[in-house]
């Protein structure tokens, strides 16, 4: 099968959808002629022009509110935030309007809006360009939250997101953008709420989110040599969350570690751990463990930034410890 990068796969998905549906338009800063700071729209402006690839003023609140109104009236906006950090000025619109209007209108209005942005700690991006923030959206009714980790998933989930009539957060970890993977020529879609077992194992289950999936897989590889068999699960979407796949895995292993680059308190790890306890308490041979970023804003300097996030070594250690509990 052909190989392509995560970014190119996602862009192919966007291009396919835009070709099929003239009501889809993209807004953002530099997503027109420039093709996007992260090449998310490269080449599309030449095909579809400024109305469907709309360079905006630096007014995140404004264009999110605008796209909310557009989504209510028959078009399908894709908001490209570049860095997800820039979504924060628009949380008022997203939480009070975008997420609530389907409910308040009893389903008479739809909200087909895709909100995409790059997340993640790394590369000395510092505290205004390293945000994750996804638990905010998972906490509130009305949002879908998608976090693809492979080119295949990026394309298939973006196409599902754009076709969805619900507001969807589509979050791309910066460290994954240039990773390559197999992507079929034929059209395909990936439904929300289906986790993927990335590696099967029998001793410990690890649920990893975003960039942590690859780190967890590396750690699992290491541990295999030590005779520790680790199962690695990528939830792919955290809202909806596929607990069944996690429950089945822990039924087998009895142990669960959640590795998440975002902060721990009220995070996705807490939610998974709690549901695990609620739905599979008797399967647990040890408490569910969490690994997260240290509880501080993201610093610039390499030694500080590195100290903040879980890495292959610390993940491996956590798995060993959990195995031994």
């Amino acid at each position, binding site marked *: 099968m052909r190989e392509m990068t995560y970014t190119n796969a996602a862009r192919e998905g966007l291009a396919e959808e835009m070709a099929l549906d003239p009501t889809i338009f993209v807004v953002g800063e530099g997503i027109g002629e420039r093709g996007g700071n992260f090449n998310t729209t490269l080449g599309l402006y030449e095909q579809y022009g400024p109305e469907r690839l709309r360079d905006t003023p630096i007014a995140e609140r404004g264009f999110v509110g605008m796209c909310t109104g557009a989504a209510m009236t028959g078009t399908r906006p894709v908001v490209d935030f570049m860095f997800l950090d820039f979504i924060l000025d628009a949380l008022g*619109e997203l939480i009070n309007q975008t997420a609530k209007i389907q409910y308040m209108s009893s389903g008479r209005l739809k909200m087909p809006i895709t909100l995409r942005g790059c997340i993640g700690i790394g590369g000395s991006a510092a505290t205004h360009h390293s945000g994750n923030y996804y638990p905010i959206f998972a906490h509130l009714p009305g949002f879908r939250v998608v976090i693809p980790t492979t080119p295949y998933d990026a394309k298939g989930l973006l196409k599902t997101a754009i076709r*969805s009539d619900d507001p969807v957060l589509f979050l791309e970890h910066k460290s994954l953008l240039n990773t390559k993977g197999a992507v079929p020529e034929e059209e395909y879609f990936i439904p929300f709420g289906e986790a993927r077992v990335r590696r099967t194992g029998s001793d410990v289950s690890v649920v990893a989110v975003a960039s942590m999936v690859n780190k967890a897989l590396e750690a699992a590889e290491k541990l295999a040599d030590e005779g520790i068999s680790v199962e690695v699960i990528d939830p792919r979407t955290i809202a909806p969350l596929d607990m069944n796949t996690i429950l089945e895995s822990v039924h087998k292993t009895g142990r669960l570690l959640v590795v998440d680059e975002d902060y721990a308190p009220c995070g996705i790890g807490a939610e998974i751990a709690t549901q695990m306890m609620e739905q599979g308490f008797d399967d647990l041979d040890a408490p569910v463990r969490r690994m997260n970023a240290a509880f501080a804003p993201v610093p610039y300097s390499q030694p500080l930034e590195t100290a903040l996030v879980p890495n292959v070594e610390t993940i491996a250690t956590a798995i060993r410890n959990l195995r031994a509990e």
Partner: protein
Amino acid sequence: MTLDIASPERTAIAPDAAHALYREMLRIRRCEEQLVRSYAQGLIPGACHTYIGEEAVATGVCAHLRPDDTVLSTHRGHGHALAKGVPAREVIAELFGRATGCSQGRGGSMHLFKPEVGMLGTSGIVGPSILMATGAGYSFKLTRTDRVSVVFFGDGAVNNGAFHEGINMAAIWNLPVIFVCENNMYATEVAFASVARNTNVAERGYVYGLPGIAVDGNDVAAVYTAAGEAVRRARAGEGPTLLECRTYRTRAHSEGMRDVGYRTKEEVDEWKRRDPIESYRTRLIADELATDDDLRGIEDEIAAVIAEALDFATHSPWPDAATATAHVYSTT
């Protein structure tokens, strides 16, 4: 680009159109008066912000709109919903919290939805409607229709970033949006003059590069005339308009709230004398656009409509608690 307060063109409006304006203002007024009584009787569990004194604005603007045109509005949105075509019975039922309300009981006074007639919703938050209306305009332009998007907002929204960001986008992309500012000089009890050095809202159109027009918001003919031109421009693809309507709410900010201290009784009385409905009634007769009998007929008609609406609301069922979590998502 800013025009002075447009002097109403007395001859421009045909008798039947004039009657319709009178009827609509009256329907809003009587509906609001009923809501005031019902609130006092404890029949409205939540907030109730009345539009009394400002009826000419919604009426004069919405008279130009088609059902497929859209309106977004604010916490003070009863009048906008009614003028856009929501039956009084569905507004009253909504404030009563009944399943037959325009929002099926989910919204109340501040969340009136009826997409079927182009009422895209009122908002309990100041600001967002301006942005969503801009987006409706974006849809209408992108899909090559001649539909028009209208948003009503108060002077309180003018100092909010949504005003700045929304109007700018509509201007630079030349969207079919009409921004109607209901400048009633106060935001709750905070005077507009205390939070803006320059209280001329229409003038602000200049910096965004769109026409800003100020009219007497208590003169339905003036509003009707100015809005007619704004709607024509929007439909013709000539772009957005900022329409400032200078008006006044003659009741407290919301029912049950005191209404003293921040404004004088003299000021309130002065504006009551400029009542948009009374003054239009007088003028219709003076201009021989209607006889006293014509207008009494309309008044009786409206009285009956509101009586029926109240009866409908009173006897409507409550929503089924089992539906409380329906429609959070389109897909499962």
